[in-house]
């Protein structure tokens, strides 16, 4: 499996911050706001319950857009990216929890930022729930890149470390489990995603295995 070039992904994330005209502020609490990033790229977010290719097709048709062949119409989707030179739409599944919707939207934004040139002028990119799963088993390089982009954007390294340090400074301890629980709510991401990120960064204390 080709490894993800983490430095390149971080550079891409940094470029979208630059385009927005601001940088992550570790003193500012709460989630990284995703909507302004989408605005800077003129991407419109659409949340449809029970997202499927058919639902995307119907939505686009209703907007007067003639979509290309969308494939297996009944397939359940987490997200869908549709762009033409004139319009860009990011679809998420409104039936998903909001942290999941945000992660999906960030994942689709990543495809737009990282992969649209490789996909040609008109992009129809469907993502199933499995493709937006944060695991080490993901085989498709583009999906792993998009997931890593979403992680770096929504759970910035500096912010995670700063919050952990603040926690330790306030309470003298920083157990990873409770930290992940609290930080997930603070950053409006899933607990599983937050736990994955803290493990990746090795932030927070894990109990020592019994010798």
């Amino acid at each position: 499996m080709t490894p993800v070039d983490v430095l390149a992904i971080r550079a891409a994330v940094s470029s979208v911050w630059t385009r927005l005209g601001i940088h992550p502020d570790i003193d500012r609490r709460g989630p990284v706001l995703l909507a302004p990033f989408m605005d800077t790229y003129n991407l419109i977010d659409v949340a449809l319950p029970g997202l499927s290719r058919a639902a995307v097709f119907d939505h686009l048709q209703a907007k007067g857009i003639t979509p290309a062949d969308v494939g297996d119409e009944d397939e359940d989707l987490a997200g869908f990216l549709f762009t033409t030179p004139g319009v860009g739409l990011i679809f998420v599944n409104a039936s998903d929890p909001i942290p999941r919707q945000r992660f999906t939207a960030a994942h689709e934004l990543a495809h737009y930022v990282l992969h649209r040139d490789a996909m040609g002028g008109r992009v129809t990119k469907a993502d199933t729930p499995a493709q937006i799963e944060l695991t080490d088993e993901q085989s498709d390089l583009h999906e792993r890149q998009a997931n890593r982009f979403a992680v770096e954007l929504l759970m910035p390294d500096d912010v995670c470390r700063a919050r952990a340090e603040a926690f330790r400074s306030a309470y003298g301890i920083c157990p990873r489990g409770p930290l992940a629980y609290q930080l997930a709510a603070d950053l409006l991401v899933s607990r599983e995603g937050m736990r994955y990120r803290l493990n990746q960064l090795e932030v927070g204390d894990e109990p020592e295995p019994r010798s």
Partner: protein
Amino acid sequence: MSPNPVREFFRRHSASLAGGAPPQVIQSTDSAERAGIRWDSEMDTEQWEARICSEEPTRSGEAPTRFVDGCHIGESVLWLRNPSHGWRVAVTLSEIGGVSMELDGRTLTRRFFGLERVVSFVIDAFPWNEIEAVAAGLANIRDYPLRLLPARMPDKDANLFDPEVMRAQAEARTLREMSVWENIALNSDPLATTLLDGPVSSREISQPKNRGLLIAVIKTHTRNYLHDQGWRTLLELPDSQRTPFFRVDPPVPRRGAGVSVATWYLKLSHSAAPNSSIVRVEVPWEQFTQRWPTRDEQIGFVNRISRWMVDARCRQQSYARMPISLEPIVRAEESLKSLFTPFGVLRNRFLRHAGSLMS
């Protein structure tokens, strides 16, 4: 973006003031949970009877020296209207925290506390871009930041038009966050013998063998753990006596789902009502069987710690939950609550920011 996304969000979704909280929903025990109960740990099910707790004092390392409690003060303060379906969504405002008190000679000293102010509601009923804006707005209110706790949508078969269903989700989310504070307090000194107010069976307790002894006392009985003879034994318990201990396993064996426990019911003091003054005690099964490997040793410990609890019971007549409370836990709760902001003040500050004092 609006200069006040919090106010804009609440105005857009027709926020209106909320009154007092309706009664708590009591959950039943399903078959999967009952499958994880083994009643014959101390004696056969048919032979269950009240067990006398001997006067023998606790041995070294058995009596708690640390007491952990969580507190929560809050209520629904606003109602929102879901934009697409018209569901009414309760917004709860709370102050939550966890505290650890240590016994130093005959004095209880506060060794750890953490508290914070939180807002919770079923966020999935609203667009994600509005939720992230309101979460950021709440988190950055100057002087009294509020963390948004995302409550989950109710189960699919729930009536989403029932406001109580939505309110219960927000309250459950807040209580779960309070239990995270309890976990943090537990982790502040993992080697001390600790008495925890609330169940240990539903917590993620990593490597119980490496920890100090953990004893949990449960005052609210929302699960049916007993068989018929168990109920008869429980309802006829004389004061200072207990049921036989039994084992309860978590219903789903996955990481973080909880730990197996040894558990029993104890009647702390005399009461006319058959179902009052009763607490349930839990000890992680791994610790229980490691420290007291034989059944006789287990019975001896259960008797000694039960007697200790009877002696430590709360005797403050003015305390509403006196019959089911232990004095060190009451002291821990009082210690933490003294640090809370008066709720009326918190509520008014929030409403002022949310712009909902207008109606």
